[in-house]
């Protein structure tokens, strides 16, 4: 190398470095977009970039049956292949599982708005209705997933934004936003990490006795009404689906009545369940009442199903999906 650096030479080296950086980032983006798998289900900390990619892919495919729900449908403590939706896919259903651990009616509504805006027209919407997340004390009650909040922000009204919480990611700083825009690898890092290092909630939990009193306060037996945020967003979701001519099959979440007998085998719980079923049927949609349809041995806790439980759920949902 020359020991005296001429300005032209220095500029040449700098230009080489800059061009190489640009070329490498472009190559990385192409590689990530081409080779990043479409996971069976979204990860816990799925990124806006990953969700966006999924929505774009779905828009390019023939209409699919889309499942919206929470950790029950996501398959808490189960491997991706053991979930009810995965089993239905294995049986030939063109299904897509967009449920995730903190799923709720507000998130379902925002997701449906996103599907609409990305040109995705589901063949059918399978909607999980879980009384647990209609509890104002539940963490999911009024929280949007950060990735959904980031993408759906322009689609929500001021009223929605006032009613709902969207945790702001610290990495929404200028540098992080710039990096997200430039590099797909960076933008989807949380998804890649969870895929490589494992999603902690996909690990089977060590067997320990589940006690009913651990779930005290999980279900709110206050009569449901329009004052409940979850009910309002469920109604909005159904209205939006009707507007877009998307048939909906809702199902009430299987709940472990044997465990929670003292808490939920009461008229108040049944009245709330009836309220929700009536709400769905009033929009001309079908609802499957699976609330008390499963035995205690099919659960790992109050509502999350075992692998066998998921197989039974797949069996119960299959006819509705096929119709």
């Amino acid at each position, binding site marked *: 190398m020359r020991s005296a650096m001429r300005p032209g030479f220095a500029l040449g080296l700098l230009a080489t470095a800059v061009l190489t950086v640009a070329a490498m980032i472009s190559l990385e983006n192409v590689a990530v977009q081409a080779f990043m798998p479409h996971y069976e289900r979204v990860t816990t*900390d799925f990124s806006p970039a990953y969700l966006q990619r999924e929505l774009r892919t779905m828009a390019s495919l023939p209409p699919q049956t889309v499942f919206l729900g929470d950790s029950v449908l996501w398959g808490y403590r189960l491997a991706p292949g053991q979930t009810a939706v995965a089993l239905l896919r294995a049986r030939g259903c063109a299904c897509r599982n967009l449920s995730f651990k903190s799923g709720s009616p507000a998130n379902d509504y925002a997701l449906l708005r996103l599907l609409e805006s990305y040109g995705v027209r589901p063949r059918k919407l399978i909607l999980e209705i879980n009384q647990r997340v209609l*509890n*104002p*004390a539940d*963490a999911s009650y009024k929280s949007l997933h*950060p990735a959904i909040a980031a993408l759906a922000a322009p689609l929500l009204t001021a009223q929605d934004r006032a009613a709902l919480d969207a*945790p*702001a*990611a*610290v*990495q929404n700083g200028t540098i992080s936003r710039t990096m997200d825009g430039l590099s797909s690898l960076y933008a989807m890092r949380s998804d890649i990490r969870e895929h490589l290092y494992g999603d902690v909630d996909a690990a089977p939990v060590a067997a320990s006795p589940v006690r009913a009193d651990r779930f*005290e*306060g*999980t*279900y*709110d*037996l*206050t009569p449901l009404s329009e004052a409940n945020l979850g009910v309002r967003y469920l109604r909005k979701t159904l209205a939006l689906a009707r507007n877009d001519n998307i048939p909906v099959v809702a199902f009430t979440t299987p709940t472990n009545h044997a465990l929670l007998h*003292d*808490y939920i085998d*009461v*008229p*108040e*719980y049944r009245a709330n369940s009836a309220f929700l079923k009536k709400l769905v049927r009033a929009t001309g949609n079908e609802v499957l009442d699976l609330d008390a349809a499963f035995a205690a041995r099919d659960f790992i806790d109050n509502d999350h199903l075992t692998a066998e439980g998921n197989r039974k759920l797949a069996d119960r949902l299959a006819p509705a999906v096929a119709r």
Partner: protein
Amino acid sequence: MTHPFRNALAAVTLGLMFAAPLGAQAEQPLAGSQVVAKAGGDAVVIWDATNWIVQLEPQHIPNPKLLARIKSESGELLLKKAGSLSAAKTLTVKVVYARIGAISKQYNNASFADFERLVSLKAKRSDALKNAAAWGKQFAAGKMPAGVKVTVTGRLPDR
């Protein structure tokens, strides 16, 4: 307009100005979710008092006084729920608040550490319905009626 009429109008206006906040306060819902965890038999209502405690933070109320106020509010809640939980024999109001852990670097939110089970009030529904007015007065005065069993199981955050 005559002077007496103007004076009366001013008095009414002033009265409304002072009464409105009081009225609003009377109608203001209790901050924090109140979950009916159990409806029949030994009914349980859980009041998450986190937001209520946070709202009062600027007033720097000492913890013993704050606890007394929490007990009063719980008593009011007990009376309110006694009216609607027709299948209950006894009614317990459990007061909890969320203890925060580390601030989440990802979401800039306080992460959740645990619920502090602060205090519970238990009474027979029949007693609550029978003595609703008297108990209401006692709760408002910061006193606990004889038929209400109070159990303090936790402590308020150190400040």
